[in-house]
């Protein structure tokens, strides 16, 4: 498709995607704390309240369980709510609504119910916000049947994946790394919806596969540049959705390169990296020349102070080191 390209930030892409869906379908509403006139605490939603009014861009009380629950009920009865969880950490207050209600109502009702609910939640450390405002909890949702889980890494992917989330008849968790809101990317003027379960090979390469999620795709790119100088060719694969997971693309790439490094910002242990590694092992066992390296956040609550916080998140150096050790 050759629609002209333009520059847009990740945060602008989120807003544009929401606005587009709200214009398209009046059953789409947005609910959350300070999503209204304030335009969210991250200020990325400024303008939606003006355009769509307080009946469709709704400021809720500080009551995550309650308003996510309302979202479930509204979705069950004909609306297509988008619910905003300001910091992904606060998902912990709404897990019952997400997991015991939203995810299971369709199955428990034998297919009668549909729950077209999109839950936007931020993720990611890096803002010196400490342990209760920095977690990346996409692993929890990915483990629960009935939920789809999106972890976009670029503005263009946001523009393509968000409509898919809103139009999906199932509950979707859409994770936005808040450190990326200001990151710019290019995107076509109009973006077609991107189907879930299709990984994106964001850079082709032959020596090692870097499987990276969300903002870690940027880290992977930085590492790939550095490694290129050393003659090492990295393929970067972005699964884009954890559920459904495009196992084939991951396996194909790892089978081709024989080496894989996984980079995700959730805590390393029992994180999504373990699943990604497992499916690659299962599919590419005979082609792997070395054990897969899993890079994740340190298994510690995110510390406040900058030097420590920085040390807990996988960075370019970590990736470069991992790749060199693996290939060396």
């Amino acid at each position, binding site marked *: 498709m050759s629609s002209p390209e333009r520059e847009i930030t990740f945060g602008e892409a989120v807003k544009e995607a929401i606005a587009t869906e709200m214009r398209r379908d009046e059953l789409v509403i947005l609910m959350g704390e300070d999503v209204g006139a304030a335009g969210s605490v991250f200020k990325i939603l400024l303008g939606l309240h003006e355009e769509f009014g307080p009946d469709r861009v709704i400021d809720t009380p500080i009551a995550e369980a309650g308003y996510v629950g309302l979202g*479930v009920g509204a979705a069950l009865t004909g609306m297509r709510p988008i619910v905003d969880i300001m910091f992904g950490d606060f998902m912990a207050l709404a897990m019952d609504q997400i997991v015991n209600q939203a995810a299971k109502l369709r199955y428990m009702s034998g297919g009668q*119910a549909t729950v077209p609910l999109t839950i936007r939640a931020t993720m990611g450390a890096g803002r010196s916000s400490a342990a209760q405002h920095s977690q990346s909890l996409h692993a929890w949702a990915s483990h629960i049947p009935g939920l789809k889980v999106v972890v976009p890494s670029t503005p263009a992917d946001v523009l393509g994946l968000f409509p898919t989330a809103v139009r999906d008849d199932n509950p979707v968790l859409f994770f936005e790394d808040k450190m990326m809101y200001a990151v710019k990317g290019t995107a076509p003027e109009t973006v077609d919806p991107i189907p879930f379960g299709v990984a994106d090979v964001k850079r082709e390469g032959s020596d090692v596969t870097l499987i990276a999620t969300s903002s870690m795709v940027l880290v992977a790119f930085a590492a790939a540049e550095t490694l290129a100088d050393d003659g090492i060719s990295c393929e970067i694969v972005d699964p884009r959705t954890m559920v459904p997971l495009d196992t084939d693309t991951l396996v194909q790439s790892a089978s081709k390169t024989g080496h894989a490094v996984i980079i995700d910002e959730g805590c390393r242990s029992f994180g999504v990296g373990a699943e990604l590694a497992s499916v690659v092992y299962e599919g590419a066992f005979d082609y792997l020349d070395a054990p897969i390296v899993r890079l994740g956040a340190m298994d510690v609550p995110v510390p406040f102070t900058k030097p420590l916080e920085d040390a807990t998140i996988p960075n370019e150096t970590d990736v470069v080191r991992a790749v060199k050790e693996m290939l060396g």
Partner: protein
Amino acid sequence: MNDETKKTIYRNMLRIRRFEEQIFEVYTGGLMHGLAHLYIGEEAVAVGVCSALRDDDYITSTHRGHGHCVAKGGNLDQMMAEVLGRVTGYCRGKGGSMHIADMSLGILGANGIVGGGFGIATGAALSAKLRKTDQVAVCFFGDGASNQGVFFEVMNTASIWDLPVVYVCENNQYGEYTATDSVTAGDTIADRAKPFGIPSSTIDGNDVVIVHETAAAAVAGAREGKGPTLIECMTYRHRGHHVGDPGDGYRSEEERQAWQDKDPITTFRARLVDEGIDAEDLDGIDAAVQEEVADAVESAAGAPYPDVEEATHHVFA
């Protein structure tokens, strides 16, 4: 209330009673897996409230959900088949007693999470308001559920947004084996609506007429845009917490007898006869209900379980 309405109400209370008695039978007979929570003794609440609703109104139910489903028009065959885990059940056997739903009748589901209906019912009310359908949502919940925080979260929200939702508390004096008083502060559960400016009342939940009238007023108000209300219905479960619990031990014989004497069905029947309805008519209803329920058991017991492949269906739409 005209005679037809009275008879319908009588019939629906009886349908619940007999259906539940059959559940106990299939349980003790080893025909069902798992457990079920019987509603016997509380029929006036479900029927009183649901008889005030339109077909397209919504209800959310609880783990003790058969009564609400019957009262809102649920089909007994499909209910019984569900309880027995058969593919002909409402949920193709995948939900069981605690998850019976009929979306076509606005029955948004029984729920295994105590307090699980609060968010859903209030969200359905928001949806009705936004879609301008003048539907009303009723949220049934227990005294035990009234201690869950989300109850207060949704009351606050329903109040500020004037949502068309009626919260109906079935105060049957116990949550499982624990007396309500021992874990529930304050005088009444109805009081819990007051700080949010939500009108509320505590009523005799065994008097189906009072329940009906109170609910009808609340529903009418909600439909007119007057916002939420809370109705606390004082009642009692005659049986144990679930089919496997004899229901004694933690409740005195005296207390149980006192509530037996206030049985919502026998008292209503006596009243109808007093009011001039022919006892034979009522006997006829009894017989018909008995048959309907027996048919439900028979058809359910004869129905197949779902194929094992169905395990993976319906995870996603």
